[in-house]
């Protein structure tokens, strides 16, 4: 019974496909998988938007949406209808074709990333040998669509916003890749399915997730920082600082095209949380051996929503970085730390089993992080706050 619950979506697919002639079954199964992804993740997008608006409301001591439905839970549906019926304004000077293609391309690429994420036991659309590489290739393509949006609008603020966003995304893509390389080194495979299987083991009822090792924890922190920047979330949300910087690359978008950018951004958040879950938090495996009876996909989606909640919490808590601070942080702190982590992971690999490697690797990482923090803070002076104004 419980095993059936675990595999319920696969059984459902096989049952539906069974009505077709045998020659069509493989193709129909793939189409059903795509339909599943295209249906489920926008659903999660609606839940995430509601969570964000209600959660931020709580943090900012206000109610948040509370008019549509009980406690405002139907707000996403109202928003969707609004953006579908709004007038779509294209600026006269805009490059109409590129202006139209940019949001479409962004959403398509954002959906592609989900194809290689294992959302449950045996539940992956394409079990690719180079799944992680595919994911990053798709992630890198979003930059082109952001540039297309900013350039085609024929608006200085849009173009500057696009340049800002692309520079930030390229800078943070490097540490994002390097922090994931550690996982590949340890697993010996680029396949996300194999990475999850390597973590789905238990010692004394506790899981072998990569976050519970010194190098995995350090890589996870760096991955989280880079992922937040890659999805343009606060405190790295300079590409769309709506109150100070005239939004950004989507300034000239309205109606449903703007909704597509919004959808693309949240899909990016969901998929990068999914990748982080797969790489560091054991994917669909249960957090305790005794909880293994719960269907695997429940664990995957709970972990994703937990990551989203942390992102919302961070957005409600931390102030925004300045552009130069953002770049310095990427190249002078995050990148060296991921490189160091690669060395530590190699050391771990060649020290063999035993407790010695735990002590040595943790000591190196702690020493460097604490040292960097101490040296960085020495130059800071904490006194009364002073204000500087632009000249």
């Amino acid at each position, binding site marked *: 019974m419980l095993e059936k619950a675990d595999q319920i979506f696969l059984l459902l697919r096989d049952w539906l496909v069974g009505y077709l002639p045998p020659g069509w079954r493989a193709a129909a199964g793939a189409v059903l998988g795509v339909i599943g992804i295209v249906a489920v993740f926008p659903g999660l997008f609606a839940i995430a938007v509601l969570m964000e608006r209600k959660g931020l409301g709580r943090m900012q001591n206000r109610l948040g949406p509370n008019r549509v439905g009980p406690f405002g839970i139907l707000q996403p549906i109202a928003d969707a209808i609004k953006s579908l019926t709004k007038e779509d304004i294209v600026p006269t000077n805009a490059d109409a074709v*590129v202006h139209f293609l940019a949001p479409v391309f962004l959403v398509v690429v954002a959906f592609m990333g989900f194809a290689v994420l294992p959302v449950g036991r045996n539940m992956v659309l394409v079990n*690719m040998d180079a799944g992680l*590489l*595919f994911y*990053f290739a798709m992630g890198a393509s979003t930059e082109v669509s952001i*540039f297309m949006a900013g*350039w085609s609008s024929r608006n200085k603020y849009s173009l500057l916003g696009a340049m800002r966003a*692309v520079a930030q995304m390229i800078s943070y893509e490097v540490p994002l890749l390097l922090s994931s390389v550690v996982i590949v080194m340890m697993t010996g495979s680029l396949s996300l399915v194999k990475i999850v299987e390597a973590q789905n083991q238990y010692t004394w009822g506790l899981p072998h997730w990569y976050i519970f090792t010194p190098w995995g924890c350090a890589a996870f922190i760096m991955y989280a920082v880079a992922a937040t920047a890659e999805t343009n979330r606060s405190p790295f949300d300079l590409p769309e600082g709506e109150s100070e910087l005239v939004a950004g690359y989507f300034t000239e978008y309205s109606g449903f095209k703007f909704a597509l950018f919004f959808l693309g951004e949240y899909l990016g958040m969901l998929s990068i949380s999914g990748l982080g879950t797969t790489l560091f938090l054991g994917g669909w495996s249960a957090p305790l051996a005794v909880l293994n009876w719960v269907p695997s996909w429940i664990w995957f989606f709970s972990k994703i929503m937990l990551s989203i909640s942390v992102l919302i919490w961070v957005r409600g808590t931390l102030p925004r970085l300045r552009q130069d601070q953002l770049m310095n942080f990427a190249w002078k702190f995050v990148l060296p730390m991921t490189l160091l982590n690669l060395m530590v992971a190699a050391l771990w690999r060649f020290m063999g089993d035993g407790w010695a490697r735990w002590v040595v690797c943790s000591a190196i990482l702690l020493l460097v992080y604490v040292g960097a923090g101490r040296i960085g803070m020495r130059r800071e002076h904490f006194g009364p706050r002073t204000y500087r104004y632009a000249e």
Partner: protein
Amino acid sequence: MSFVFWLLSAITVAGGLAAVLLKNLVHCALALTVVFTGLALLFLQLDAQFAGFAQILVYVGAVAILVVFAILLTRSSETPKDGGVFSRTWMAGLVIAAAVFAVLGWAVLQSEAGLPHETAVPNVTVQEIGNALMGRYVLPLEIVALLLTAAMIGAVIVAMHEKGDAK
């Protein structure tokens, strides 16, 4: 030669022609991105996963953006007002592209004689490429890495403010 091959080839060739013939430079750069993607899909169709994804990651994700930034930072990217989609010098562009293609094709055809003739289709997985890069070809890899690092340091020094010039 399957239907998919012809479709991908058509997209790639159309993108290449657009990159050569269009008037607006940014449109040309975007068409070049289409060519890169088409090539990557052709690699994937030949079962070369690593080459295909690396092509998208490096060329679509980085080189295309670099090209576009170079266009925007060096000369005006504003559309010429005098109408028309195609560049006025489309003939010259086509001739240069055809000449480059001819030289490359000639070089490829010449090199075929020098290579050992393989009959079986090699089955190259990502893991084998990794092992080869870290084992047999580790020296060339490190030399390339050193060269790229030197190039990057050079670029940073060129772009850096002179002392005293800084605000």
